[in-house]
């Protein structure tokens, strides 16, 4: 279990800290106030400190600072009180970002230096590295790394380490994601993403599109260097799905049933495919058997769908400031996402608006209002939760480890984020 240095323990904890020193530690109880990884707080279980059951040999170094190697992160045994099914894991928490801190540290730097190494043009370097400043959620690298470690633990036990190839896949997943964002921004003409002016406001469309191509090219080089036919195939499927998802977004379907299926397929292609295939790739690299790889894939798929559904939900509820990008953005782009599609049941007047992609004056406002009046948001939340639960169920089939717990916690992180 991650060793927590004293700086991360709240005052209440230090009073109650019962840490046993020595190599054969079985149980310790530490009260932990989770620190958020980034500017906005993670509302996981509210504000109070929570009880955590951890064990680990090196807790003695809690005062001494961070644990050095990755290997020491692995618990010699972990008493799990959780049944692995949501929502009952109140007795234990793992913060995946903290858990993977060493692994994720420097991921953005490494991506930037890989990009820099591959060009002699300073302007290209500037544009390409713009999106890798570490301000993003880093969800994809985190999930990829988490799954890598969880599967490694599952296959090889507690002395497994993160393979360099797996770390490359984490980097690749983030690069593919950013490249697709760059192209999307040109397509959607959006000016904001992640709280700063989007790339194409600063530079022109052509340069930006080329920078996106460049990032993909470098990612392809990295994929080829992994020297695995299967992984290359799996990851090439990602970019194909991304483009096909974009095409799907252009078209529209007539009937309501078709529309929802269309929306789910499109959502899979645009969001879930990347996560699903990245975690499958790290499972492949781990040498896991087919079932485990498929399990990883399904976990990623469900997590991705859940993530996107929450994203679509947040577009209707959060304010512009919290998100870093303007809301009702989907409506303004003419996209009918889950809340709208659900709201159609109660308010069929949304149907013609969907067909004309909210182009007429007042459409966006009216649709926004109708969605809030209907049960659309609730139904979306329910569907997101359903996928989250499924992902957690799948994760529970892996061998018990802090990482496996982290996978379960991630499904909840995804559901409860405010940004």
């Amino acid at each position, binding site marked *: 279990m991650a060793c927590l240095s004293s700086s991360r323990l709240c005052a209440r904890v230090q009073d109650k800290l019962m840490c046993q020193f020595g190599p054969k530690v079985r149980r310790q109880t530490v009260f932990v106030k989770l620190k958020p990884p980034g500017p906005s707080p993670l509302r996981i279980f509210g504000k109070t400190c929570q009880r955590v059951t951890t064990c680990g040999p090196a807790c003695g170094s809690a005062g001494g600072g961070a644990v050095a190697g990755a290997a020491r992160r692995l618990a010699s045994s972990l008493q799990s009180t959780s049944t692995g099914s949501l929502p009952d894991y109140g007795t234990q928490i793992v913060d995946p970002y903290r858990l993977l801190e060493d692994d994720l540290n420097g991921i953005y730097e490494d991506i930037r230096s890989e990009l820099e190494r*591959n*060009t*002699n*043009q300073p*302007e*290209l370097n500037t544009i390409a590295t713009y999106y890798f400043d570490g301000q993003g959620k880093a969800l994809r690298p985190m999930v990829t790394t988490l799954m890598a470690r969880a599967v490694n633990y599952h296959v090889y036990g507690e002395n497994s380490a993160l393979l360099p190839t797996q770390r490359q896949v984490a980097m690749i997943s983030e690069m593919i994601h950013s490249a697709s964002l760059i*192209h999307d921004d*040109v*397509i959607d*003409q959006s000016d904001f993403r992640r709280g700063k002016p989007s790339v194409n406001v600063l530079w*022109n*469309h*052509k*340069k930006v*599109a*080329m*920078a996106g*191509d*460049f990032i*993909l*090219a*470098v990612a*392809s*080089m990295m*994929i*080829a*260097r*992994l*020297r*695995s*036919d299967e992984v*290359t*195939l799996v*990851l*090439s*499927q990602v*970019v*194909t799905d*991304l*483009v*096909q998802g*974009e*095409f799907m977004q*252009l*078209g529209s379907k007539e009937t309501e049933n078709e529309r929802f299926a269309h929306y789910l397929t499109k959502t899979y292609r645009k969001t879930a495919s990347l996560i699903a295939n990245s975690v499958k790739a790290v499972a492949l690299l781990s040498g896991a058997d087919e079932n485990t790889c498929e399990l990883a894939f399904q976990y990623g798929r469900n997590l991705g769908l859940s993530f996107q559904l929450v994203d679509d939900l947040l577009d209707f509820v959060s304010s512009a400031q919290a998100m870093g990008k303007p809301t009702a953005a989907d409506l303004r782009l003419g996209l009918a996402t889950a809340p709208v599609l659900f709201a159609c049941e109660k308010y069929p007047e949304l149907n013609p608006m969907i067909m004309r992609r909210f182009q007429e004056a007042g459409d966006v406002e009216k649709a926004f209002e109708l969605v809030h009046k209907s049960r659309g948001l609730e139904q979306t939340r329910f569907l997101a939760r359903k996928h989250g639960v499924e992902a957690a169920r799948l994760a529970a089939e892996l061998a018990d480890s802090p990482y496996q717990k982290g996978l379960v916690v991630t499904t909840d992180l995804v559901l409860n984020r405010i940004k």
Partner: protein
Amino acid sequence: MSYAMIRHLRRTAILSQQIRVESTMTNLTQEDFVFRPPMAQWSKIIREAEKIVGYPTSFMNLRWLLSDEFANLAMHLRKIVGSNHPIMKTAKTVLYNEQNNLQPWGLIILLLSKAISPSTHSIQTTTLIEHQRMLAELTEMIRTGHYIHRGLLNISVEEQDQKRDTSMFANKIAILIGDYLLVTANGMLARLRNQDLSYLISTALRDISEGEFFGPRDSQNMPLPGEPVNKNVDNFKINCDTIPLSVTDILGSPISEWTLRNMYNGGSLFGRGCEGAVLLAGKNVAEQKKAYLFGCHLCLAWQAASEISKFSTENQEPFSLVSAPVLFALNETPELYENLKNVKTVTSIDLNDLKAKISKTNAIEKTKRLYTENADKAKSYIEMFGDNESVNTIKRLINTI
């Protein structure tokens, strides 16, 4: 694969009715893509070559038209037909390959594959040929996809709304189609299950996108020449490494600048395509390198030939400001550079005037020499692959002047 269907598509495509207006804007991105060798025998040689390889490569570029994705788009394309967006011209160029107005990359790769293939027929050879065809096709696809991305329009905020919307939309389509081609090529590459090959082609992808950032550019990202400098030795040695192309001391020296620009623009990709064909055949690294150099020099030779033809007196087409004759002329007469530096758009330059001035210099002669050097190098490399019908056909295709 229905070639009849493609012919039908060509005849009935909406584009054929609509494209009449050839504005200077749409001519912009045609530069290094269109290739019209003046040889009368050209089409005949191409057809003979296609018989040798048993594959009608003229259609290689067009299979994506039959895809579902494109069918989806066809509806939307109606909105941009009639606009002056560069993608319309690109589409026309790609569709109407009747006069073989594109450098026949796929064909050369297949001829090369044929030249090195063993005479025995076995399962392995059939698979190999299949793979080499896929490689030829994906190389063409990458070229087209990249070219389409270069056909984006930079839209300024001052442009009025209606025009702006159409341009934005057309940009969107251009990005999508380009992306579609690039990812399809990527998928084909993955299915070849050869990571060395994947790596090579990926480096070519990197080079080709890097090229858009080299040297001064106008507001539409069209290339502008570098300020002429005087260098004692002006040449560009192509090495076979996969590291990014070196840019030190290049701008302003005509041969170096021209070679580097065209290495970015296609040389690297075509070279790696040729190298890939040899790699797939299981040849050693030395052979692969020869194939790479062959491809690069051939691409350069064809490019030089194409630029020379633009300067013939009958030819009224616009030429690129970074084509060899311009660069050579600037180096000879640096005063000419005054008009060209920091231009906002290349369309503001009086090309006829510039052409006349260039004709007074030795630029055309030097360009012809550039062609000959590259053509000779290409020939010498291809001869290393044996003396057979395929190699001889390639040599005939090299002699475009």
